[in-house]
């Protein structure tokens, strides 16, 4: 089978790109990568180590314009005879994969968490992670958008050739006016470790102990919906059913009761630690490790323990 993987890493190869190529390799076939962005040829060639046979790159395509990216991928799919096209389920994929589905009349599976089963059905999370489903694709051509952090990248091969590719993508209909990048923060959707806090912190002035723990761990910070709604923390930190859904390796929830809507945004986390004064907080039922205690006492102790751990070799 001919498989085409689209990646949009801007300056370095994102882990999600390596995951997508690894995923294609696990399905098996002739794997071509089509890339946009400014990653150097030599770096793109290392995708061969994860299973790519060839990388096609068109650096003129603007990822903010889903029409341009769709034209590029459609042309690459045609020239490689791709029967399966794989995305990592990020902002660009959420705009482009549905367009490509219409253009190629290829059924789209969004947010896959596993390789297709023996019947070709693909497992996805549904009901905001409260359940899973298997999707059958009826069309000949198929598109799968892989949920990040579902597969770990695996090196199996060696570097592959990289070729310039003219996607004939046309002009961009979307103009980027401004990009605001706050310094020094770890982006929440990419973070492998997350420290999150809720109303139990009693006020925005108390977030220092949360940030200290996050800093000691190298974690991103997040918050519950009430905390974002009353303006203690910025909206982009709100995780939950109506905020950001995340699936880090470790989610530490401090002073968050664990309403069903909050759990929907974090139930993909590999390990959940809950710290709460209330032993009856529903979040403990979804936790792997629990600490009943006052955040203002527990967090500084945990931060010290993490610092001690980090300062000794393991």
């Amino acid at each position, binding site marked *: 089978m001919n498989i085409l993987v689209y990646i949009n890493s801007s300056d370095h190869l994102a882990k999600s790109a390596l995951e997508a190529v690894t995923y294609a390799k696990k399905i098996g076939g002739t794997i071509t990568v089509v890339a946009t962005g400014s990653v150097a040829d030599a770096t793109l060639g290392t995708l061969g180590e994860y299973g790519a046979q060839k990388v096609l790159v068109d650096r003129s395509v603007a990822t903010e314009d889903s029409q341009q990216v769709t034209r590029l991928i459609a042309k690459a799919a045609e020239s490689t005879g791709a029967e399966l096209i794989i995305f990592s389920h990020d902002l660009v994929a959420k705009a482009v994969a549905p367009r490509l589905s219409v253009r190629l009349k290829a059924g789209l599976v969004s947010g896959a968490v596993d390789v297709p089963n023996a019947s070709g059905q693909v497992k996805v999370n549904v009901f905001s992670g409260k359940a899973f489903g298997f*999707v059958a694709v009826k069309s000949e051509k198929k598109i799968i958008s892989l949920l990040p952090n579902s597969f770990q990248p695996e090196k199996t091969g060696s570097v592959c050739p990289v070729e310039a590719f003219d996607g004939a993508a046309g002009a961009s209909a979307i103009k980027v006016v401004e990009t605001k990048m706050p310094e020094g923060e770890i982006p929440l959707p990419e973070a492998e470790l997350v420290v999150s806090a809720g109303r139990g912190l009693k006020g925005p002035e108390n977030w220092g102990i949360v940030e200290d723990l996050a800093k000691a761990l190298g974690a991103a910070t997040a918050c519950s919906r009430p905390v974002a709604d009353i303006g203690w923390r910025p909206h982009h930190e709100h995780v939950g*059913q109506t905020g950001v859904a995340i699936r880090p390796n470790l989610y530490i929830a401090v002073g968050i009761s664990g309403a069903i809507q909050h759990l929907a945004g974090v139930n993909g986390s590999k390990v959940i630690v809950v710290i709460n004064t209330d032993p009856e907080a529903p979040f403990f039922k979804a936790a*792997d490790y629990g600490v009943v205690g006052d955040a203002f006492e527990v967090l500084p102790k945990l931060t010290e323990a993490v610092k001690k751990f980090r300062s000794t070799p*393991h």
Partner: protein
Amino acid sequence: MKILVCISKSPDTTSKIAFTDGNKQFDENGVQYIVNPYDEWYALVRGLELKETLGGNLTIITVGNAADEAIIRKALAIGADDAVRIDADPKDAYFTAIQIAEYAKSNGFDLILTGKETINYNGSQVAGMIAEAMDLPFVSLATKLDINGSTARMEQEIVGGVQVVEANLPLVVSCAKGMAEQRIPNMRGIMAARTKPLTVVAPSAVEDLTAYVEYGLPAPKSAVKMIDPNNMDELVALLHNEAKVI
């Protein structure tokens, strides 16, 4: 401004999720359907705010059967001017999007808004599919949307920050948190909704490309391990040795 807001039904956010018919069907027993929160709180309310500022008309559209008219009336009560129901089971995202695109093509909308995804299928597919079927530009997961003349200015959260983009109308936008605040319909709105026009349109002949063949519930978590609040070294050791996450 002619604005079209696409709405979908979804189970209430507190619904118990269960399956029936050998795990092939969602168990609707006792489930209360609502307007999908992303469609209602962000797409519909921002659409209304734009209409109130710029003038014009806001139409809501859904693909569904007669039972879905309850959510249509709710959206009308919040302030939409009129509604269209395409009389079909929304078989998959492709089927739904092409139905909406077919209607929208012949009705000249300046702006088509959807929520960023539904809370039941989380596919984030319909808006992009509508845009492609209509050959329109598309901005996904916008957290802000303003219109100035024939130009739309939007913000999107990108990895590590925020991106401000502009595009010309007509345009398709999917809406995420930050764009507007939830509106509770008042009694006047609820009364007015009863008499607002609701057009039922026969579906176009469109095939579906995907199908959910089976569902399941995640295995229950093993019991939580409680740690002494005075022994955080133990928690760190467990996270390293047992959970292997640090």
